[in-house]
């Protein structure tokens, strides 16, 4: 599923934000136009991809956000919106009036939440208002950016607002050559332990935890893998593949942490598959140079068998920052 950025503006400034570099380099007023949305929708339909994610920045800051959602729904796309849930009164009322009654089969939200202790009162009020109204359409997303994270407030949200019983766990990644907060490689096992410590609560509350990209397999012990396997009914993913992002200026890139490398124009491609193949090939080249985030990744049979992709590629790119250009030349473009 491709991600379409409606706007580069955001209402928050999360310390771990791996879109920070992209946002900083972008023109803040740049928003997706109707004509470009139609072009993307046409390209996706032509590619038989009928699911689309809308994100930003904060997508609800786009003045035509609701109209865009209605348009895509009318074209029979399943629309998933990544939002902070923080929006102005007028936009919230419009969303409630127009989108509130749309079936969860057609529209869903991933509400990315931060620890309430680190959030302002008004931010929290906004998030609660959003979840109260759109809980039935919403999954909570949480980005882990330190090993001793806290998930208690999420369980509370799920129960209080009747959210979907699924937690989308993201892992904050480094932006190559930049400074943002993320879980360092040597702290990943601690982070994994912390996550496993929450499993009994997940199970008691019948909430499933799903991994976003970039979790390496070997940060979990055999026993922990077994627990996760049972918890997720055998559906475990330790992948890292190109998540195609499309900017308001019609540039595309292979995922946010890598947004400052290998940006292309969407017009260079004939289908979504072409875009995906381009970035898959490129990522493969990087993995040929640096197998994964750990030294052991080179000889790992699970990586060879693609059971694990060796963690987030952004870590691999970090290897290239302070060295001469000795790798595949495509990596540096």
């Amino acid at each position: 599923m491709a991600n379409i950025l409606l706007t580069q503006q955001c209402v928050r400034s999360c310390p771990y934000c791996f879109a920070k570099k992209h946002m900083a380099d972008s023109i803040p007023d740049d928003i997706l136009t109707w004509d470009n949305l139609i072009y993307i929708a046409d390209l996706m339909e032509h590619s038989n991809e009928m699911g689309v994610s809308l994100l930003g920045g904060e997508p609800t800051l786009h003045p035509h956000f609701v109209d865009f959602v209605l348009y895509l729904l009318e074209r029979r796309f399943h629309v998933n919106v990544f939002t902070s849930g923080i929006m102005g009164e007028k936009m919230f009322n419009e969303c409630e009036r127009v989108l509130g009654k749309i079936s969860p089969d057609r529209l869903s939200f991933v509400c990315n939440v931060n620890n309430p202790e680190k959030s302002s009162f008004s931010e929290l009020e906004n998030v609660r208002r959003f979840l109260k109204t759109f809980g039935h359409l919403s999954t909570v997303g949480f980005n882990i950016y330190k090993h001793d994270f806290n998930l208690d407030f999420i369980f509370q949200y799920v129960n209080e607002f009747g959210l979907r019983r699924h937690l989308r766990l993201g892992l904050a990644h480094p932006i190559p050559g930049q400074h943002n907060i993320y879980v360092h490689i040597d702290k990943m096992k601690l982070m994994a332990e912390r996550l496993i410590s929450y499993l009994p609560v997940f199970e008691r509350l019948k909430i499933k935890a799903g991994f976003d990209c970039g979790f390496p397999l070997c940060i979990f012990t055999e026993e922990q893998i077994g627990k996760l396997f049972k918890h997720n009914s055998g559906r475990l993913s330790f992948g890292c593949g190109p998540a195609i992002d499309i900017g308001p200026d019609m540039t595309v890139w292979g995922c946010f942490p890598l947004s400052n490398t290998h940006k292309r124009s969407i017009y260079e491609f004939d289908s979504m598959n072409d875009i995906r193949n381009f970035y898959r090939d490129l990522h493969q080249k990087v993995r040929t140079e640096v197998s994964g985030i750990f030294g052991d990744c080179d000889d790992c049979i699970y990586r060879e068998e693609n059971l694990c992709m060796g963690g987030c590629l952004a870590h691999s790119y970090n290897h290239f920052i302070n060295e001469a250009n000795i790798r595949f030349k495509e990596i540096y473009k």
Partner: protein
Amino acid sequence: MTREHIIVCQFDENLLGRLHKKRLVVNTSADANIPHICQFVNNNQNNLHCIVIHQNNTLASTPFHENWRGIPIAVFADQMGSFKEIMQKMRLIRDLNIRIFLNTDFKENFTNIHILASLGIDCGVFFGENNLDWEALNDLMTYSVYSKAHHATIEPFHFIINNYNPTRTTDFSSVYFNNPYTYLHIDSEENIAITKNDLIEGKYIASGINLIPDISENEKYKEALHSWQEFFLQENGCAFCQAWRVCMGKFSTSIKDNPGCSKFFVDMMEAADYFLSVQHKNKRKELWQP
């Protein structure tokens, strides 16, 4: 050869009562009773070609109704209005036998038409009074002709590419019911004119319904049919333009203030040529039959 014209008039029961066995285009407003007009026309032994609704308000405020199904309708509106309101009526509009025209005077209409066509609503532009944004029109034409994505037709591009003949002129006035070979305009006093504007401005070619069957013998009518020849008498006039065969001087009065028509119509012709070549390529072999 006597030509059976389609008569364009206002919805006037008195006038319609005097017309028999004619194909009619009936102009009306958005608040009119559309099924009643359809029924009235057909009850008077006339055939309804199309009802043209002139919407003075936004397109979104048009009272589209289930009972419009099957009736050929064209809506001319200056602006689209609320997208959300349109979306509420989208399923119905798509089911209607309708074509929606928006005014080029409003820049956002190029995008609005793009949206409507991509949602499967047949639509088109109608040319307003202000300077035309030829680039925006070209973008819309490019989408209309070249886009491989599913979309509805956009006029007048659709008409041009479907009627284009590289060896002849292609007059897209028919899209706006103004081609004298096909349409005649008539008012309640039975004044007959070539175009809607001529009728409003009192430039009549004849007066009386009884004159319609022999209108091809009318001198003013003949003049109107050949009025395009005037362009050949002007030095560097539109007739010398590369795109003459498709444009036929329709923008001659505005060309000084708003050049760009020539480039657009050259691109339009290229698109029509392309469409023709695609059609030719896809033409299936017709095998002889026993």
